[in-house]
Protein backbone atom coordinates (compact mmCIF):
# COMPACT_ATOMS: atom_id res chain seq x y z
CA UNK A 1 0.00 0.00 0.00
CA UNK A 2 2.77 2.43 0.82
CA UNK A 3 4.19 1.80 -2.62
CA UNK A 4 1.13 2.75 -4.59
CA UNK A 5 2.58 6.05 -5.82
CA UNK A 6 5.18 4.11 -7.72
CA UNK A 7 2.72 1.91 -9.51
CA UNK A 8 1.47 4.50 -11.96
CA UNK A 9 -0.36 3.25 -15.03
CA UNK A 10 -0.88 -0.21 -13.57
CA UNK A 11 -3.21 1.14 -10.93
CA UNK A 12 -5.12 3.18 -13.47
CA UNK A 13 -5.66 0.18 -15.68
CA UNK A 14 -7.29 -1.72 -12.88
CA UNK A 15 -10.00 0.96 -12.61
CA UNK A 16 -11.14 0.56 -16.20
CA UNK A 17 -14.67 -0.59 -15.63
CA UNK A 18 -16.40 1.20 -18.44
CA UNK A 19 -16.94 4.51 -16.73
CA UNK A 20 -15.13 7.57 -18.03
CA UNK A 21 -12.98 9.04 -15.30
CA UNK A 22 -11.94 12.66 -15.11
CA UNK A 23 -8.37 11.81 -16.16
CA UNK A 24 -9.72 10.33 -19.38
CA UNK A 25 -11.50 13.57 -20.13
CA UNK A 26 -8.36 15.57 -19.49
CA UNK A 27 -6.03 13.48 -21.60
CA UNK A 28 -6.39 15.56 -24.77
CA UNK A 29 -2.99 16.13 -26.36
CA UNK A 30 -3.19 19.93 -26.20
CA UNK A 31 -3.21 20.21 -22.43
CA UNK A 32 -0.19 22.30 -21.66
CA UNK A 33 1.93 20.60 -19.00
CA UNK A 34 5.16 18.65 -19.52
CA UNK A 35 6.99 16.11 -17.42
CA UNK A 36 10.74 16.75 -17.71
CA UNK A 37 13.47 14.28 -16.77
CA UNK A 38 16.90 15.76 -16.04
CA UNK A 39 20.29 14.18 -16.54
CA UNK A 40 22.43 13.21 -13.59
CA UNK A 41 25.69 11.27 -13.39
CA UNK A 42 24.33 8.53 -11.13
CA UNK A 43 21.26 6.93 -12.67
CA UNK A 44 22.14 4.06 -14.97
CA UNK A 45 21.09 4.44 -18.58
CA UNK A 46 19.62 0.94 -18.49
CA UNK A 47 17.61 1.82 -15.38
CA UNK A 48 16.22 5.05 -16.86
CA UNK A 49 15.21 3.15 -19.96
CA UNK A 50 13.64 0.39 -17.84
CA UNK A 51 11.59 2.95 -15.91
CA UNK A 52 10.32 4.57 -19.14
CA UNK A 53 9.32 1.16 -20.48
CA UNK A 54 7.73 -0.29 -17.40
CA UNK A 55 6.04 2.82 -15.96
CA UNK A 56 4.88 4.57 -19.14
CA UNK A 57 4.61 1.40 -21.21
CA UNK A 58 6.85 2.90 -23.92
CA UNK A 59 8.45 0.66 -26.56
CA UNK A 60 12.13 -0.18 -26.23
CA UNK A 61 12.94 2.17 -29.12
CA UNK A 62 11.00 5.10 -27.65
CA UNK A 63 12.37 4.54 -24.14
CA UNK A 64 15.95 4.42 -25.41
CA UNK A 65 15.47 7.51 -27.56
CA UNK A 66 14.16 9.51 -24.58
CA UNK A 67 16.87 8.14 -22.30
CA UNK A 68 19.59 9.19 -24.77
CA UNK A 69 18.01 12.61 -25.09
CA UNK A 70 18.23 13.03 -21.31
CA UNK A 71 21.83 11.86 -21.39
CA UNK A 72 23.00 14.02 -24.30
CA UNK A 73 20.87 17.14 -24.02
CA UNK A 74 20.61 17.22 -20.25
CA UNK A 75 16.81 16.95 -20.21
CA UNK A 76 13.90 15.46 -22.08
CA UNK A 77 10.15 15.91 -22.05
CA UNK A 78 8.91 12.39 -21.54
CA UNK A 79 5.16 12.92 -21.04
CA UNK A 80 2.44 15.53 -21.45
CA UNK A 81 -0.89 15.94 -19.79
CA UNK A 82 -2.91 17.93 -17.31
CA UNK A 83 -1.08 19.46 -14.37
CA UNK A 84 -2.44 16.74 -12.08
CA UNK A 85 -1.35 13.96 -14.45
CA UNK A 86 2.22 15.16 -14.86
CA UNK A 87 2.50 15.83 -11.14
CA UNK A 88 1.43 12.26 -10.46
CA UNK A 89 4.07 11.05 -12.93
CA UNK A 90 6.67 13.28 -11.24
CA UNK A 91 6.04 11.68 -7.84
CA UNK A 92 6.31 8.23 -9.41
CA UNK A 93 9.61 9.22 -11.07
CA UNK A 94 10.88 10.53 -7.72
CA UNK A 95 9.90 7.17 -6.27
CA UNK A 96 12.21 5.55 -8.82
CA UNK A 97 14.95 8.07 -8.02
CA UNK A 98 14.77 9.91 -11.33
CA UNK A 99 15.07 13.68 -11.24
CA UNK A 100 11.74 14.92 -12.62
CA UNK A 101 10.07 18.32 -12.73
CA UNK A 102 6.84 19.63 -14.25
CA UNK A 103 6.49 22.75 -16.38
CA UNK A 104 3.89 24.47 -18.47
CA UNK A 105 4.34 23.65 -22.13
CA UNK A 106 3.88 27.24 -23.27
CA UNK A 107 4.96 30.57 -21.86
CA UNK A 108 7.18 31.06 -18.85
CA UNK A 109 6.35 27.77 -17.21
CA UNK A 110 6.02 29.40 -13.82
CA UNK A 111 2.95 27.38 -12.92
CA UNK A 112 0.85 30.35 -11.85
CA UNK A 113 -2.78 29.96 -11.04
CA UNK A 114 -4.78 28.32 -8.36
CA UNK A 115 -3.24 24.90 -8.92
CA UNK A 116 -5.04 22.02 -7.38
CA UNK A 117 -8.12 23.15 -5.59
CA UNK A 118 -8.69 19.91 -3.78
CA UNK A 119 -8.25 19.35 -0.12
CA UNK A 120 -7.14 22.84 0.75
CA UNK A 121 -7.96 23.83 4.27
CA UNK A 122 -7.14 27.19 5.90
Amino acid at each position, binding site marked *: MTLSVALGPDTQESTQTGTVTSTDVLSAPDIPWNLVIWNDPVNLMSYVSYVFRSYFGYSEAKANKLMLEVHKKGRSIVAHGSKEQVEQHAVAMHGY*GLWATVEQATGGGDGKGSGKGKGKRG
Partner: protein
Amino acid sequence: MAKAFKYGIKGITGYLEPAERELLRSLFDDVVSMLEPEERANQDPLAALVGLDAEAREPSDRALRRLLPSVSKNDAAASLEFRRYTERSLRESKIGALKAASLGLDKDDLVLTPDDARHWSMALNDVRLVLAERLDIRDDEDAGHVHLMQDWSQAEDVESYLALVYNFTTWLQESLVQAMLQSLETRG
Protein backbone atom coordinates in the same frame (compact mmCIF):
# COMPACT_ATOMS: atom_id res chain seq x y z
CA MET B 1 32.02 -12.97 -4.39
CA ALA B 2 28.57 -11.87 -5.44
CA LYS B 3 27.21 -13.17 -8.71
CA ALA B 4 25.40 -11.00 -11.23
CA PHE B 5 21.60 -11.21 -11.20
CA LYS B 6 20.25 -13.48 -13.93
CA TYR B 7 16.87 -13.98 -15.50
CA GLY B 8 15.81 -17.61 -15.92
CA ILE B 9 12.94 -20.02 -15.44
CA LYS B 10 12.75 -19.35 -11.70
CA GLY B 11 12.64 -15.60 -12.28
CA ILE B 12 15.45 -13.25 -11.34
CA THR B 13 18.08 -14.89 -9.18
CA GLY B 14 21.26 -13.65 -7.56
CA TYR B 15 23.88 -14.67 -5.08
CA LEU B 16 25.51 -12.60 -2.33
CA GLU B 17 28.09 -13.53 0.30
CA PRO B 18 27.10 -13.01 3.94
CA ALA B 19 29.41 -9.99 4.23
CA GLU B 20 27.85 -8.45 1.13
CA ARG B 21 24.38 -9.00 2.54
CA GLU B 22 25.46 -7.34 5.76
CA LEU B 23 26.83 -4.37 3.85
CA LEU B 24 23.65 -3.94 1.79
CA ARG B 25 21.46 -4.31 4.87
CA SER B 26 23.29 -1.50 6.61
CA LEU B 27 23.15 0.70 3.49
CA PHE B 28 19.39 0.14 3.12
CA ASP B 29 18.90 0.83 6.84
CA ASP B 30 20.96 4.04 6.64
CA VAL B 31 18.81 5.41 3.83
CA VAL B 32 15.64 4.37 5.69
CA SER B 33 16.74 6.38 8.73
CA MET B 34 17.50 9.40 6.51
CA LEU B 35 14.01 9.20 5.03
CA GLU B 36 12.03 8.58 8.20
CA PRO B 37 9.92 11.70 8.75
CA GLU B 38 10.67 13.47 12.01
CA GLU B 39 7.86 13.29 14.50
CA ARG B 40 6.72 16.71 15.59
CA ALA B 41 4.97 17.47 18.85
CA ASN B 42 2.33 19.69 17.24
CA GLN B 43 1.64 17.33 14.34
CA ASP B 44 -1.96 16.80 13.29
CA PRO B 45 -2.32 12.97 13.45
CA LEU B 46 -5.16 12.90 10.92
CA ALA B 47 -3.18 15.00 8.43
CA ALA B 48 -0.20 12.68 8.90
CA LEU B 49 -2.43 9.69 8.28
CA VAL B 50 -3.54 10.97 4.89
CA GLY B 51 -0.02 12.03 3.96
CA LEU B 52 -0.23 15.77 4.48
CA ASP B 53 2.66 17.59 6.07
CA ALA B 54 2.05 21.30 6.44
CA GLU B 55 5.54 21.76 7.89
CA ALA B 56 7.43 20.07 5.04
CA ARG B 57 10.34 22.10 3.69
CA GLU B 58 12.97 21.54 1.05
CA PRO B 59 15.62 19.40 2.83
CA SER B 60 18.89 21.16 3.66
CA ASP B 61 20.89 17.95 3.24
CA ARG B 62 21.98 17.55 -0.36
CA ALA B 63 21.50 13.80 -0.52
CA LEU B 64 18.02 14.06 0.95
CA ARG B 65 17.21 16.84 -1.52
CA ARG B 66 18.20 14.50 -4.33
CA LEU B 67 15.94 11.74 -2.95
CA LEU B 68 13.05 14.17 -2.49
CA PRO B 69 13.49 16.73 -5.30
CA SER B 70 11.40 19.84 -5.90
CA VAL B 71 8.74 19.36 -8.53
CA SER B 72 9.25 22.73 -10.22
CA LYS B 73 12.56 24.11 -11.39
CA ASN B 74 11.64 27.77 -11.02
CA ASP B 75 8.57 28.05 -8.84
CA ALA B 76 9.61 27.58 -5.23
CA ALA B 77 6.13 28.31 -3.86
CA ALA B 78 4.45 25.71 -6.07
CA SER B 79 7.18 23.19 -5.22
CA LEU B 80 6.68 23.76 -1.52
CA GLU B 81 2.93 23.38 -1.74
CA PHE B 82 3.34 20.17 -3.75
CA ARG B 83 5.88 18.88 -1.24
CA ARG B 84 3.39 19.37 1.60
CA TYR B 85 0.88 17.16 -0.17
CA THR B 86 3.22 14.47 -1.48
CA GLU B 87 6.51 14.27 0.37
CA ARG B 88 5.34 12.13 3.23
CA SER B 89 3.96 9.41 0.97
CA LEU B 90 7.07 9.59 -1.24
CA ARG B 91 9.20 9.01 1.86
CA GLU B 92 6.97 6.10 2.84
CA SER B 93 7.11 4.54 -0.61
CA LYS B 94 10.91 4.74 -0.66
CA ILE B 95 11.12 3.33 2.86
CA GLY B 96 8.79 0.52 1.78
CA ALA B 97 11.07 -0.46 -1.11
CA LEU B 98 14.22 -0.26 1.05
CA LYS B 99 12.65 -2.38 3.79
CA ALA B 100 11.35 -4.93 1.29
CA ALA B 101 14.83 -5.28 -0.20
CA SER B 102 16.36 -5.50 3.26
CA LEU B 103 13.89 -8.22 4.23
CA GLY B 104 14.79 -10.14 1.08
CA LEU B 105 18.37 -10.33 2.34
CA ASP B 106 17.21 -12.56 5.20
CA LYS B 107 16.31 -15.37 2.83
CA ASP B 108 18.96 -17.89 1.83
CA ASP B 109 18.13 -17.77 -1.87
CA LEU B 110 17.82 -14.52 -3.74
CA VAL B 111 14.89 -15.32 -6.02
CA LEU B 112 13.08 -12.13 -6.95
CA THR B 113 9.49 -11.76 -8.14
CA PRO B 114 8.85 -8.81 -10.50
CA ASP B 115 7.74 -6.74 -7.47
CA ASP B 116 10.81 -7.75 -5.45
CA ALA B 117 13.02 -6.80 -8.39
CA ARG B 118 11.39 -3.40 -8.67
CA HIS B 119 11.86 -2.75 -4.94
CA TRP B 120 15.48 -3.87 -5.15
CA SER B 121 16.24 -1.67 -8.13
CA MET B 122 14.66 1.35 -6.42
CA ALA B 123 16.46 0.62 -3.15
CA LEU B 124 19.85 0.22 -4.84
CA ASN B 125 19.23 3.39 -6.82
CA ASP B 126 18.47 5.42 -3.68
CA VAL B 127 21.57 4.02 -1.96
CA ARG B 128 23.67 5.03 -4.97
CA LEU B 129 22.17 8.54 -5.04
CA VAL B 130 23.13 9.03 -1.40
CA LEU B 131 26.64 7.59 -1.83
CA ALA B 132 27.15 9.77 -4.91
CA GLU B 133 26.37 12.91 -2.91
CA ARG B 134 28.79 11.85 -0.19
CA LEU B 135 31.42 11.23 -2.89
CA ASP B 136 30.70 14.59 -4.55
CA ILE B 137 29.86 13.03 -7.92
CA ARG B 138 28.64 16.07 -9.86
CA ASP B 139 29.25 15.06 -13.47
CA ASP B 140 30.28 12.16 -15.68
CA GLU B 141 33.95 12.95 -15.14
CA ASP B 142 33.60 12.61 -11.36
CA ALA B 143 31.69 9.37 -11.90
CA GLY B 144 34.48 8.07 -14.16
CA HIS B 145 37.07 8.94 -11.55
CA VAL B 146 35.18 7.07 -8.82
CA HIS B 147 34.71 4.15 -11.20
CA LEU B 148 38.50 3.62 -11.37
CA MET B 149 38.48 2.52 -7.75
CA GLN B 150 37.99 -1.25 -8.02
CA ASP B 151 40.55 -2.87 -5.75
CA TRP B 152 39.50 -3.44 -2.14
CA SER B 153 43.15 -3.55 -1.04
CA GLN B 154 43.30 0.14 -2.01
CA ALA B 155 40.66 1.09 0.54
CA GLU B 156 42.69 3.24 2.87
CA ASP B 157 40.28 6.00 3.87
CA VAL B 158 36.57 6.66 4.10
CA GLU B 159 36.39 8.11 0.62
CA SER B 160 38.05 5.20 -1.14
CA TYR B 161 35.91 2.80 0.88
CA LEU B 162 32.75 4.68 -0.17
CA ALA B 163 33.93 4.62 -3.78
CA LEU B 164 34.31 0.85 -3.66
CA VAL B 165 30.89 0.47 -2.09
CA TYR B 166 29.44 2.77 -4.75
CA ASN B 167 31.01 0.70 -7.53
CA PHE B 168 29.76 -2.54 -5.98
CA THR B 169 26.16 -1.25 -5.75
CA THR B 170 26.41 0.14 -9.29
CA TRP B 171 27.51 -3.23 -10.63
CA LEU B 172 24.79 -5.02 -8.70
CA GLN B 173 22.07 -2.63 -9.89
CA GLU B 174 23.24 -2.84 -13.49
CA SER B 175 23.10 -6.64 -13.45
CA LEU B 176 19.65 -6.52 -11.85
CA VAL B 177 18.31 -4.03 -14.42
CA GLN B 178 19.67 -6.12 -17.28
CA ALA B 179 17.82 -9.13 -15.86
CA MET B 180 14.66 -7.00 -15.47
CA LEU B 181 14.93 -5.80 -19.08
CA GLN B 182 15.28 -9.40 -20.20
CA SER B 183 12.17 -10.33 -18.25
CA LEU B 184 10.28 -7.49 -20.01
CA GLU B 185 11.24 -8.99 -23.40
CA THR B 186 10.04 -12.42 -22.36
CA ARG B 187 6.78 -11.22 -20.87
CA GLY B 188 6.21 -9.08 -23.95
